[in-house]
């Protein structure tokens, strides 16, 4: 079953074309990675998929609903989102940050919110002592763990993460990747972005190469490497970009 389906997304900002035709499909329980350099259009694609900005053209269905339709509000609680450079509420404690998020996703049902909170605390890996301190005093890694816990605490069907390991130390990044794999095995679908081809290779069931606002190739990492006769995904990406001269999207 397809949980995210985007076809020919087009978007301009202040007259400048940002997306010129991004397409992708995320299957249930899979990890789909949008890989490409900074400025390729990955974040804009995610924001369109989440209904945060309006598309100029193309079609999107997330969990069978168009994000620009009136039904979108009912879908949002089934999604977990971790933006690339998201912040936390510095003046709230870590626990209060999690509780606020838990209450929102539990629709104010305190019993359910407590379950979400317990799961959030577990995912964050932060001690109660750390969680009782104001989030403003946290290191970048601790804040990221808090945000990750907020995105996953309500056991969403679909998780969208923009550069989930960006700026994190090796151990923190490893923990996040392990958690993603674990949750995908349990049936959660993931749409991730990264500019790190090694990370894409390690995590992805399926990869979309995004370049200059368009999808230039989409397949599993193995298929992409075979298709471009490459030893790794990084090399495959470079070859895909070189092949772009023809201007075609490679369907593998």
């Amino acid at each position: 079953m397809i949980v995210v389906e985007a076809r020919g997304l087009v978007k301009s900002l202040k007259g400048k074309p940002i997306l010129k035709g991004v397409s992708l499909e995320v299957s249930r329980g899979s990890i789909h990675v949008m890989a490409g350099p900074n400025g390729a259009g990955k974040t804009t694609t995610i924001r369109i998929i989440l209904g945060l900005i309006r598309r100029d053209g193309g079609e999107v269905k997330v969990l069978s609903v168009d994000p620009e339709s009136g039904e979108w509000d009912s879908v949002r609680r089934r999604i977990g989102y971790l933006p690339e450079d998201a912040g936390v509420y510095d003046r709230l404690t870590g626990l209060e940050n999690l509780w606020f998020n838990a209450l929102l996703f539990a629709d104010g049902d305190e019993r359910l919110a407590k379950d979400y909170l317990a799961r959030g605390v577990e995912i964050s890996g932060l001690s109660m002592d750390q969680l009782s301190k104001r989030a403003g005093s946290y290191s970048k890694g601790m804040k990221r763990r808090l945000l990750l816990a907020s995105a996953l605490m309500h056991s969403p069907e679909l998780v969208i993460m923009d550069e989930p390991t960006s700026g994190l130390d090796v151990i923190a990044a490893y923990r996040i990747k392990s958690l993603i794999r674990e949750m995908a095995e349990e049936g959660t679908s993931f749409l991730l972005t990264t500019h790190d081809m090694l990370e894409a290779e390690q995590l992805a069931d399926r990869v979309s190469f995004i370049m200059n606002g368009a999808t230039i190739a989409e397949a599993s990492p193995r298929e992409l490497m075979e298709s471009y006769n490459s030893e790794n995904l990084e090399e495959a990406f470079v070859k895909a970009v070189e092949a772009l001269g023809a201007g075609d999207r490679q369907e593998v």
Partner: protein
Amino acid sequence: MVPGIDRKSRIVFWKEVRDLSRDYRTIVSVILLPLLGLPGLAILTGALLSAQYVEVAIIVNDTSSWRFAEALASDIKSVLARAGLQSSVGLYSSWPNTSVDVVVFIPAGFYSNISRIDGTGVVIVSSLIGSQASEIAVNNIIALINSKSRSMVLDRVSELSERAGLDLDPGGVLNPIRVQKGFHRATGAPATGEEASVAFSARILEFSLFFVVNPAVVFVSDSIVGERERRTIERLLVSPLSRRQLLVGKMLASAVLGLIAAAADGAGILLFFLLAGISFALSTSIIGVWLASVILLIMVTSAIVSIIASRSESIRSAQNLSFLVIIGAMAIYFSSLMVDLTKLPGTVSLVMQAIPFTHAALTIHYYALGDLASVARHFAILAIYWIALLLVAARTFNTEKLIIVKT
């Protein structure tokens, strides 16, 4: 309960109150500074006023007037002390060599003139130009001399009636017409002096509304644009929270904190006027009307600022743009101190009524006049303004602008 305040709005409200109440810098600047600063300003001004020192010279060019001049000097000293001025009063036979602030000149022939039953003695009172303290002193000295003149007139009338063998009331001769002041309400019913004092004091309450607008602008700008600056807005917009729920939650939190700030500011203003020696009378019910106006005013201001904030690049630019709102409010509430907003000509009144802030002042104004129907009408207009502006804010809430930061 106001429609739209559901569980999710209350969750946002909870978060906002926690968050904003820990923003100590803003709280100090918006709540504590006016509360302590305004009375402090009055105390400082009062202290500086009473610290002023005035030198008064009485130049006596009439040897017969020395005793009168000595008594006058003593009276001037007491009058100036009551006016809060420190002074030294000296008697001279010619212009003193030192610089003086006030000169009271008694020319030759003064005493013989005032001693005659129909004579006029002239006193020249001169103040140092550009001196505020001299002006205050001169006004008090002239009032003192007028009072002396009036008691002389009464003596003269008594003497004249004695000479004429008539039984006259000198006060009646002096004041053939006496004015008796009364008060009435807008309905025509008579009002007491106490009610008149409350109505007059209501102007101070109308003026104090200005201090309500500023905290609302600060809190809402920080609450909405701050989400973007702290990079928390994206997750919030993806959460199961509608734009309206988000705005209502934020506005309610701003209203609570704005109300605390308004109460602090209001108390600061009242203390300022009290310490400045301006007495006023307020009833519990008019304070209740003021509070209701404050709540609606905060909600209206919050809605206007929300519309501005969701289109602003930063907290600073949101607050700068919102300054236009503050100027509008300032114009109305400052003018309400001196202008009767209900007595303006048709077109001007129409323009004023198109500004929502006017209605907050008018509720207090009409309540003080005892016109409850107009109070209800202006409360209703304010509420309609709020709901309409809230709907516009929710409909035009520009997530794209909020998310895509100009770099």
